């Protein structure tokens, strides 16, 4: 009788243990931020992964973009952090990423599918596979078509210059009594495409930063002048000190400005929040004197080298980087995929909106116009230092604290301090 009771207890313990396999699963933490609906899509994809792989429990920490920019770097420097993270400051932090190569099921697939962007996310000279781009992005503009039509101002054409766009938008703003003609996100990254369009080259022959050149000076001067004339929406840039990021998307969504310069990652956000309120179009990047270039970039999903579960992390990454998962993720989030086997045009984007489809198509067309100087920036380790100095000093010039010459001189000294 006693033996039978013991056997029953043992059986119960074993079956409970087996049923609650999840309790013994390896935890993999993923830090994730969202511009649109991608957090929900990722959660859905991970749920499916965990059903098929009950020995791995992926915890998705949805955080604000600011946490990725400000808190994650501190954790990484302290040798902590999540196991996987979605980041945009990819190159400058490359020393913290894990080389997944020995743990991947098929490293050759990764090299073939994502190899052309692998340098963006690994230290110079390294051959490591540290992650993959969750999407490719390109900076570019959006115009409120309804406001242009109401003001009887024709939308500038494909090769229109910055001056033409600003003049046309100023006419719309005056006609519709708007606060400004256009807005640009407060970010050094965002004005780098236009700087390159005016001939800027940040990278010196030795790979170190160039001094602020005539190209950068030309566009920054225009931007500051437009701000002083009330054409550029001042609040976004002067409402912060330092290099803090500020988006101007809300001003465009609320129809406060007829033209907005940001990037392709805003498509889903604009589609969701604007809905049927007004018609909008993606315009690509206006032209400068040298090119009509935006700045390529994107967000990467990278493995963190301080993880205690590299094999589990690699399995999660293998799953998320598979062609079918990348395809589904891109279709549902309206992101341009970085997988070389998936052309954006082959995807069936999950939207009925013709303007969203046109916007995606517009950005894919504009990607052909990216100037070589802009193409080099995502893989350049000093890009962040340059962007930070641009944002800090340009906004001081806009606020009237520095003359343009002082601002350019300070940009040079800021970059020099951070690079030495």
């Amino acid at each position, binding site marked *: 009788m006693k033996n039978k009771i013991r056997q029953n207890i043992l059986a119960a313990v074993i079956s409970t243990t087996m049923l609650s396999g999840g309790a013994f699963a390896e935890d993999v933490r993923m830090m994730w931020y969202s511009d649109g609906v991608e957090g929900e899509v990722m959660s859905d994809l991970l749920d499916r992964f965990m059903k098929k792989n009950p020995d791995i429990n992926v915890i998705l920490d949805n955080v604000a973009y600011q946490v990725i920019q400000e808190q994650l770097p501190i954790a990484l420097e302290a040798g902590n952090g999540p196991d996987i993270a979605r980041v945009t400051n990819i190159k400058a932090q490359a020393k913290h990423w894990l080389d997944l190569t020995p743990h991947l099921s098929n490293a050759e697939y990764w090299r073939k599918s994502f190899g052309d962007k692998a340098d963006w996310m690994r230290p110079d000279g390294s051959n490591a596979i540290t992650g993959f781009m969750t999407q490719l992005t390109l900076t570019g503009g959006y115009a409120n078509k309804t406001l242009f039509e109401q003001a009887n101002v024709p939308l500038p054409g494909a090769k229109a210059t910055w001056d033409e766009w600003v003049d046309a938008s100023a006419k719309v703003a005056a006609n519709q009594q708007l606060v400004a003609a256009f807005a640009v996100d407060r970010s050094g990254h965002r004005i780098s495409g236009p700087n390159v369009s005016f001939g800027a080259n940040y990278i010196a022959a030795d790979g170190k930063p160039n001094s602020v050149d005539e190209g950068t000076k030309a566009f920054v001067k225009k931007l500051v002048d437009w701000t002083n004339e009330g054409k550029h929406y001042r609040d976004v840039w002067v409402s912060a000190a330092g290099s803090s990021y500020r988006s101007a998307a809300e001003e465009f969504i609320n129809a406060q400005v007829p033209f907005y310069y940001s990037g392709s990652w805003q498509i889903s956000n604009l589609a969701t929040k604007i809905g049927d309120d007004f018609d909008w179009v993606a315009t690509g990047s206006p032209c400068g004197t040298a090119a009509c270039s935006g700045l390529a970039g994107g967000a990467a999903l990278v493995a963190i080298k301080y993880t205690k579960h590299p094999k589990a992390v690699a399995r999660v990454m293998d799953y998320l980087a598979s062609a079918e998962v990348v395809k589904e993720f891109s279709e549902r989030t309206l992101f341009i995929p970085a997988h070389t086997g998936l052309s954006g045009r082959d995807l069936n984007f999950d939207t009925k909106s013709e303007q969203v489809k046109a916007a995606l198509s517009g950005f894919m067309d504009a990607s052909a116009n990216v100037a070589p100087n802009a193409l080099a920036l995502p893989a350049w380790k000093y890009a962040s230092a340059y962007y930070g100095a641009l944002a800090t000093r340009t906004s001081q010039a806009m606020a009237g604290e*520095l003359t343009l010459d002082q601002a350019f001189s300070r940009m040079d000294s800021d970059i020099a301090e951070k690079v030495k």
Partner: protein
Amino acid sequence: MALFKNFSIGAALAVPISYLANAVDVPLRWWQRVAGQGGMISFFLIPNMLIFAMFVIVPLAINIVYSVTGGTELFLTERSYVGTEHFDRLLDCSEYTDPNSCREDLFWIAIWNTVKFVFTQVSIMVLIAMITALILNGKIRARGFWRAVFFFPVLLSPVVVGLIWQWMLQRQGVFNFFLFQFDMESINWLTERSWAFGAAVGVSVWAHVGFYVLILLAGLQAIPKDLYEAAEMDGTKPGRAFWRITLPLLWPNLLVVIVLALIRAVQIFDEVYVLTGGGPGTSNLYLTQYIYEVGFASILRNPGVASAASLIMALVLVVLTLAQLGLTRWRDKQ
């Protein structure tokens, strides 16, 4: 119901507490016999001292080490010794009153902004706190209600304070809505330099004045009423009574208020950071925000420079605290 009528929590807890006291009593008596009275003092002080060391002394020591080492690494063993390089960088100016002549211009902008903010905010704060305390100490209707009204903002989180006022002061906020209703030009409260500074001072006074009102009110209520009665019988006017009775007797409380307000103003960060982000430009960039930006928030952090700046700020706070102690002792001697 009768069962609960005579029920009290104190009575219910008396028995377990007495058991606990007896249980602790035996080992404590033993320790007193072994270690003596000095040992007992150490016994009660050591836990506090350990916590103080862990959260104050050790971080201070680490901060000092950071300030003399370089690099972006956080582990002290990975940082290289650079001596006074960070202090030299911060203090490298051809003219200290002109931040543009300084190598680290933002640090000096933050210093001068902080000086301007401290002087303005503390003056306004003390004045308003004094007037409010005098009114609330008088015989007014619903006195308790008004005291609660003035104290309420003190209970709010600084982030909440910043957000509430940002919503009211932004371009499409409540304030501009009212101006629009009266056909007046809207004002860029948060993006024009002079308005934004005023907004930062105003919001911070609104958020903290209740605390200082409370201190002054306690002081006012401690002044014996018969002094005023005697003065009144002598025909003293209210203004003279204020200068001759209220102010001298309230001086210790006023001193505490001024010094606490000064220390708090030097540390200003949270509500102003949420409200203005330090802008427009750098017109609301204060010392704590500068340290935060350089140490944590900027794209390429520099913990060494941030630590050096925080030590300079600590020095200012030490001077203020010593001034408070000195003034209190001087007052006691008087």
